[in-house]
């Protein structure tokens, strides 16, 4: 059976979780606690030496990049297609997934790590955390953990992240005015990707992502949230992260 090593239904972990649920693929779930750094323990490093989450093991193959991982799921399993057969719509899906992953996502996560991961990590013994950080394989992840743990995000960095998030809300609202879904007329991995990074916007950016200012985004989020696969996936959440979805139940 396919094995998925993941954290919360959120961001990168949530992408393959929701894609698998939409395809109706049963999988062996291995929950890793990001805040306890389960992903840097030897047992997991034996599967993914980079120590990043998620990782998927299928037919002896190990996949560690969450967005290409979703395309693999769609290509290899039966179930409803999650990519258009139209090459232009596939291109648009991929373009937007990169925009979510490399522009919008890092800004959202910087704010999230500053507000959520950092304070929780600081509740632990600092010396223990320092030692744990030194064991992280990728330099980029060591930097991220140091910044979160020691609260090293500057005001300028956080302000720029907020600017990019608000800018992206406007860009996405206009996009969803032109197209029903991210890739075009049908629900695809692009929507799954975007939902995982944007579902908490009504919670984190209530002044900018609301029914008055961003009605297309709100309707899009509610449509995805109403899907059985989404509800089943977010029910797997163990922390308060997943509860942010409840705002999508307040209307329509």
């Amino acid at each position: 059976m396919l094995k998925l090593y993941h954290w919360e239904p959120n961001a990168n972990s949530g992408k393959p979780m929701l894609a698998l649920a939409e395809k109706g693929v049963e999988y062996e779930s291995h929950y890793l606690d990001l805040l306890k750094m389960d992903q840097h323990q030897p047992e997991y490093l034996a599967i993914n030496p980079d120590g990043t989450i998620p990782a998927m093991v299928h037919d002896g193959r190990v996949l560690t990049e969450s967005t290409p991982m979703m395309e693999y799921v769609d290509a290899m399993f039966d179930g409803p297609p999650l990519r258009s057969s139209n090459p232009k719509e596939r291109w648009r899906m991929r373009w937007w997934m990169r925009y979510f992953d490399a522009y919008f996502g890092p800004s959202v996560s910087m704010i999230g790590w500053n507000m959520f991961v950092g304070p929780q990590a600081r509740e632990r013994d600092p010396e223990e955390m320092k030692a744990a950080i030194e064991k992280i394989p990728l330099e980029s992840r060591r930097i991220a953990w140091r910044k979160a743990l020691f609260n090293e995000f500057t005001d300028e960095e956080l302000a720029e992240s907020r600017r990019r998030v608000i800018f992206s809300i406007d860009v996405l609202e206009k996009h969803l005015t032109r197209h029903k879904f991210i890739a075009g007329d049908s629900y695809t991995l692009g929507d799954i990707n975007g939902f995982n990074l944007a579902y908490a916007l009504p919670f984190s950016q209530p002044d900018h992502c609301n029914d008055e200012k961003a009605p297309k985004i709100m309707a899009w989020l509610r449509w995805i949230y109403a899907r059985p696969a989404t509800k089943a996936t977010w029910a797997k959440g163990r922390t308060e992260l997943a509860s942010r979805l409840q705002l999508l139940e307040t209307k329509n």
Partner: protein
Amino acid sequence: MIELYHSEPNSFYLKPLVALKEKNAEFKSHYFDPTKFEQFAPDFPHNVESDLQLEREGPLLIDGGEIISSSFFMLEYIAEALPGTDLYPGDGYTKYRAQAWGQFLGLALGPAVAALGCAKYLGPVLKTRGQTELKAAIDKIEPIERRNAWLAVIDGSYTDAALKGAAEKVKFPVKRVEDWLADNTWLTGDAYSIADIDAFALLSVLPDLTPEIVNATATPKVMDFLKRMRDREAVQAALAMSKTGKPQEFFVPGAEPSRWG
């Protein structure tokens, strides 16, 4: 007929040219000079995606009225939409590998290559231009990240420390490719694919930009890969579209470095 807006066949401009040549596809070439900001002319094609593309100044492919941007996804489009040689062979896992390489190299190597190339070649070119007009042209560029990428070339952002940091960033992805090629012929395994075209466009400039990191002694597999790529007719045909004769010296601002450090 497909139209391609490109400049000198180097970095991201090189990728679709090689792929189209591999496909023996007919296309109309629109050669432009991004250092003269021709991409901001009123009649230059653009859409939301090309305006906001994270490579900033990359090529544009127009097919059936759709403007395709972002070079790796453009390669996927060419591979999937056009007839001819299969540039995306294999099953879902082989394609996963291609996408994973494209994502990894684009994010881990792309920004460093753009910074090192712009510092070495574009900076001196822009210094020969009228600075008042140059600054005025840059000040009009939107979005702000695209404007800032141009400003960085002329405002002293490329300090020795910054360039040393960029060179350091090259080491990790280069080692990963070197290690992979010790056991594999191509980036996805046994078959040539768009992943190789993508990697070649980023790696081929490194023996010049970072000779202490990419050379025959330190990275023999990468050097052999580059030679095998240059031996391909499609690569030679793409490089022959240069108008300067020195495509390897042409750089414009590209993807920004990770904001996480």
